[in-house]
C-alpha cells in the first residue's frame, strides 16, 4: 500500500533509508546520528516524525494478552489476524481512530464494544446534538457504546468499568489518541510544547532545522493561536512549505486549521475550525449543522449527514471572508456560490485560481 507511485522517489532523486531510525540530532555539528551508528551531515534538516499513540496506564494492563493500537498498517494487519467471527472486541476511545477501528471490525468480529470517558462519541469534534445522531447510527449498525464510562482495571480478559459493570473481551484496542513525536527535537535542545513549535515558514527555533506535519504545533487560522493540527491536509502543505524554504525558496503556510472529514457506515461527518459563537443551528433526527462565527468571520462548523459543498464553509474560514459581504441567509442552509455575488462568481467560474 503506497501513497506515491513506486518510482516516485527515484524520479525525484530522493534517497530513502527504509527501516532506519534517526536516533539523535547534533545541531552544532549539523549531523544526524542513525541507529546503526552511522552519521549523516546536513545543511537543512526537516523533522517529520509524525505522532505516536498515547496510552495512559490502566491498572492490570499487562495482564491483557491480546492488546493493540490502531495507528500503523502493521497494527491493523496484526489486529485483523487476531480477530475471528467469535472474537469479542473492546475498544477504549470513541474518537476518530477508535470508531474507525470499530467500523472495520464490525463484520470481522463477534461483537464490538467501544467505551469512552467522555459522555459523547467524538467528543473532541462534536457537541451533544451532533454526536447523538452519530451514536444512534453506530448502535443501529451493531456497535455497543459505553459512554461516560471507562475502564478502571483490567484482569486478564475482563475489564472492570467505572460504573461497576464488567466487560468480557478477547481483544483490546487502545485508541485514546496520538501525541506528537518530538523526541529528536527535544534531544537536540529544541523547544517542545505539545508539539514542536514552528513559524509560518515551518522553521523551528534551532538554526537549520525545520519541522512539518503531525509532530508540529503551528498557527491555527481559525483562532490565531498555535495548535497541533494533525491531519493530512495540514501535514502535506507544511511539508511542501518546509521543502521550498529549505531549498532556498520562499513559502509560507498560514491557513492551517483543525479539520476532519470521516464517515461511519455511510454517515458522513465534517468539522473544521474553532467553535466560537453559534450563528446557525439545524438539528433533525438524521442531520445536524452548526456554524460558528466571531468578529464578522466564520470560525468553525460541524456537519453530520449532508456534507455536500462543505468546502465552501472551510474556504470562508481559511480566507477570513467578511460575512457582511455575503448573503448569509442563503449560505447558512446550503453552501453554494450564490451568496458570493456575480463579480466573485465570474472570477471563480470564468478564471482560474
Amino acid at each position, binding site marked *: 500500500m*503506497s*501513497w*506515491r507511485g513506486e518510482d516516485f522517489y527515484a524520479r525525484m532523486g530522493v534517497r530513502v533509508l527504509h527501516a532506519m531510525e534517526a536516533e539523535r540530532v547534533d545541531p552544532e555539528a549539523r549531523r544526524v546520528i542513525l541507529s546503526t551508528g552511522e552519521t549523516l551531515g546536513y545543511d537543512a534538516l526537516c523533522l517529520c516524525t509524525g505522532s505516536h499513540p498515547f496510552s495512559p496506564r490502566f491498572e492490570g494492563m499487562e495482564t491483557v494478552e491480546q492488546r493493540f493500537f490502531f495507528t500503523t498498517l502493521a497494527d491493523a494487519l496484526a489486529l485483523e489476524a487476531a480477530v475471528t467471527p467469535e472474537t469479542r472486541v473492546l475498544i477504549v476511545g470513541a474518537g476518530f481512530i477508535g470508531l474507525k477501528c470499530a467500523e472495520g471490525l464490525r463484520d470481522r468480529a463477534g461483537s464490538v464494544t467501544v467505551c469512552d470517558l467522555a459522555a459523547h462519541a467524538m467528543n473532541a469534534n462534536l457537541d451533544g446534538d451532533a454526536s447523538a445522531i452519530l451514536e444512534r447510527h453506530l448502535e443501529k449498525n451493531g456497535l455497543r457504546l459505553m459512554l461516560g464510562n471507562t475502564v478502571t482495571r483490567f484482569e486478564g480478559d475482563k475489564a472492570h468499568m467505572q460504573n461497576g459493570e464488567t466487560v468480557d473481551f478477547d481483544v483490546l484496542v487502545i485508541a485514546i489518541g496520538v501525541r506528537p513525536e518530538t523526541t529528536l527535537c527535544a534531544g537536540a535542545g529544541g523547544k517542545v510544547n505539545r508539539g514542536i513549535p514552528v513559524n509560518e515558514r515551518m522553521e523551528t527555533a534551532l538554526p537549520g532545522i525545520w519541522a512539518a506535519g503531525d509532530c508540529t504545533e503551528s498557527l491555527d487560522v481559525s483562532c490565531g493561536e498555535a495548535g497541533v493540527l494533525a*491531519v*493530512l*491536509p495540514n501535514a*502535506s*502543505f507544511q511539508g*511542501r512549505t518546509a521543502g521550498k524554504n529549505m531549498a532556498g525558496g520562499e513559502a509560507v503556510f498560514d491557513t492551517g486549521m483543525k*479539520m*476532519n*472529514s*470521516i*464517515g461511519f457506515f*455511510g454517515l*458522513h461527518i*465534517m468539522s*473544521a475550525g474553532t467553535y466560537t459563537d453559534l450563528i446557525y443551528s439545524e438539528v433533525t433526527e438524521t442531520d445536524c449543522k452548526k456554524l460558528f462565527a466571531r468578529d464578522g468571520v466564520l470560525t468553525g462548523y460541524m456537519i453530520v449527514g449532508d*456534507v*455536500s*459543498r*462543505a*468546502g*465552501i464553509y*472551510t*474556504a470562508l474560514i*481559511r480566507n477570513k471572508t467578511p460575512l457582511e459581504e455575503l448573503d448569509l441567509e*442563503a449560505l447558512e442552509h446550503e*453552501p*453554494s*456560490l*450564490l451568496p458570493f455575488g*456575480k463579480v466573485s*462568481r*465570474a472570477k*471563480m*467560474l*470564468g*478564471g*482560474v*485560481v
Partner: protein
Amino acid sequence: MKRVYVNEDWCLGCHLCEYNCAFANSGEKDMALALKGKPLNPRIRVEGDGSITYAVSCRHCKDPLCLRSCISGALHRENGAVCIDHSKCVGCLTCVLVCPYGAVLPGPDGAAMKCELCLQNACGEPACAAGCPNRAIVYEEREEAEA
C-alpha cells in the same frame, strides 16, 4: 490547458449539462437507458435561485487543494486534469471538505466524484460544454488563466 468556463449571463437554467454529464459518465450508449428512472449523478451542478443560474464543475485549479489534501493518493493529475483513481479512494471526502467551489461531490458508490473533463469517457471532451444550447458553458484555453 483547456478548461470548462461558465458565463452565468447566458445560462438558461435548463440543466441539460447535468443530463449530458451523467450520460457521458454512465458508460451506456443510449441516453434513455442510462438515465431513465435512475438517480442522476452529474459532476456538474446548476445552482442559483429564481433569477440567477449557473453551472459549477471542477476548476482544475493550478494548485488544487483537493489533490494536496487527498489522504490516500487517489486524486492525481492526468495531462493537467485533476482525476480520481477509484481503486485508491477510501471515501473519506477530505476533498469535499477542502474544495472552495463545492465542485467535488460525494459519489453514489461512496467514493468522491468530480469532473474529469470527459477525458476518461467515450465523449472525449466535456459533454456539458458540447451540449450547452446557449454557449453558457465553453471548453477553451484562456490566456489569463495560464498567466
